[in-house]
């Protein structure tokens, strides 16, 4: 199955028909909602959240598409501005916003809660329809993220992006250079975020080169952070989240593996990560010294190099740097 990014410009792929298809597939909607929930979790916004007595955050949604992610942000109580390169997708988002507005003005139809009841805030978070008594705090812009974000410095409290960033890695015309567009995007993102803000950008890298290009551009403009990979061993469930912040001591949280039990309401397959790595246990020769299973000690490295030399393979000399503990990059 060829990737959508290879077929051409994002606005051509996400035309009116595709936009409708995207929005009506409940599986698609469910997945995008889950990804958004996870992104919001990774944002580490101040607690309590707006629906628990806290203040709404002003959030930028890059590549907001038909507003699915915006909807989740609304359910959490935040105010958001979304931008997307596809006018057709934005029109769908607009439709949704219109519907909410109508529902809020006229007290909702039979599927919504009665407007006169005061507290609809302890309703379940799952059904977006129940929130329809409030108009949408979302706004939409027709904009290409590769041209840089057109906002004043230090505007937003947070930024999310769901399944959009990888589009920057492909050029659709002679004058589009991926690296330049990525640099423009990240340097503008750095400027428009307030200090202490975070950005979480979920994307689908086609190759590890793409993932590296993306993280390098982010690091080069000054962001700290890293890529969190959820379910790394499942082709279907695997998700990459680029988590960016201004904190130098930022440690990217560990990705989900499925072992910690479903975070959201679905069964996940994953591989147990821990001290016992079942794959390795059988193969390792009895001789190799290991401090604890799963880590490489200097002794083991020296032993391994010796074995390589004996086999006649070209091996670097052992110096004082061999097997030295390296400083953490992030």
């Amino acid at each position, binding site marked *: 199955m060829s990737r959508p990014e290879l077929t051409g410009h994002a606005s051509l792929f996400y035309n009116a028909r595709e936009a409708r298809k995207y929005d009506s597939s409940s599986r698609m909607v469910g997945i995008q909602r889950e990804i958004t929930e996870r992104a919001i979790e990774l944002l580490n916004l101040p607690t309590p959240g707006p629906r628990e007595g806290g203040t709404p955050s*002003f959030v930028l949604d890059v590549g907001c598409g038909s507003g699915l992610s915006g909807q989740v942000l609304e359910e959490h109580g935040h105010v958001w501005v979304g931008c997307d390169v596809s006018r057709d997708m934005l029109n769908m988002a607009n439709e949704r916003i219109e519907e909410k507005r109508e529902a809020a003005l006229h007290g909702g139809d039979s599927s919504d809660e009665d407007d006169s009841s005061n507290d609809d805030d302890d309703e379940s978070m799952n059904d977006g329809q129940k929130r329809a008594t409030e108009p949408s705090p979302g706004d*939409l812009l027709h904009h290409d993220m590769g041209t840089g974000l*057109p906002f004043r410095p230090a505007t937003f409290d947070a930024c999310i992006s769901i399944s959009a960033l990888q589009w920057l890695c492909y050029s659709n015309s002679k004058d589009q250079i991926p690296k330049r567009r990525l640099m423009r995007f990240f340097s503008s993102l750095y400027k428009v975020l307030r200090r202490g803000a975070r950005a979480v950008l979920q994307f689908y890298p086609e190759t590890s080169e793409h993932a590296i290009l993306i993280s390098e551009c982010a690091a080069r403009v000054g962001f700290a952070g890293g890529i969190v990979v959820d379910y790394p061993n499942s082709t279907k469930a695997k998700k990459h989240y680029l988590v960016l912040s201004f904190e130098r001591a930022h440690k990217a949280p560990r990705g989900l593996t499925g072992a910690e039990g479903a975070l959201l309401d679905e069964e996940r397959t994953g591989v147990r990560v821990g001290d016992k790595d079942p794959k390795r246990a059988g193969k390792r020769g009895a001789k190799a010294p290991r401090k604890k299973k799963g880590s490489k000690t200097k002794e083991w490295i020296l032993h391994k190099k010796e074995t390589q030399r004996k086999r006649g393979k070209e091996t670097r000399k052992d110096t004082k740097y061999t097997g030295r503990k390296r400083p953490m990059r992030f």
Partner: protein
Amino acid sequence: MRLLTHNVLRNNTAAAARSTAPLRITATEVRVDDPPSAPSDDATRREVAFAKHALPILDWDALVQGAKAMGLDSLPPHVTPELAEGEGFLRALYHVLMNVHLVNGMLTCPETGREFPVTDGICNMMLEEGECE
């Protein structure tokens, strides 16, 4: 497009040379949403909290100018610290920021004259590659 969004928007073409001047609004069609008749206490609390939170990032002059262009003259020219604490003021501010929508019109950069059309509430900020920094 609401006044909050207009307030934080700027022209980021190379020609505008990092200017943070607000875009001038030419309004063809404006829509003001009435606030809900019986808002829940929590909704009111959130509105006041957000207005207070957003106040420091606003370009107040741009807000006054923008509101005027959309037909609203009620904003004070300056915000004093006492005013900024008042719940009545903050609720009115939330209303101005969030419920006044430019449905159709034009945003114009005062420095370069570059125009950004607004149709159906969505502002078109698409740039050509050649225009970018």
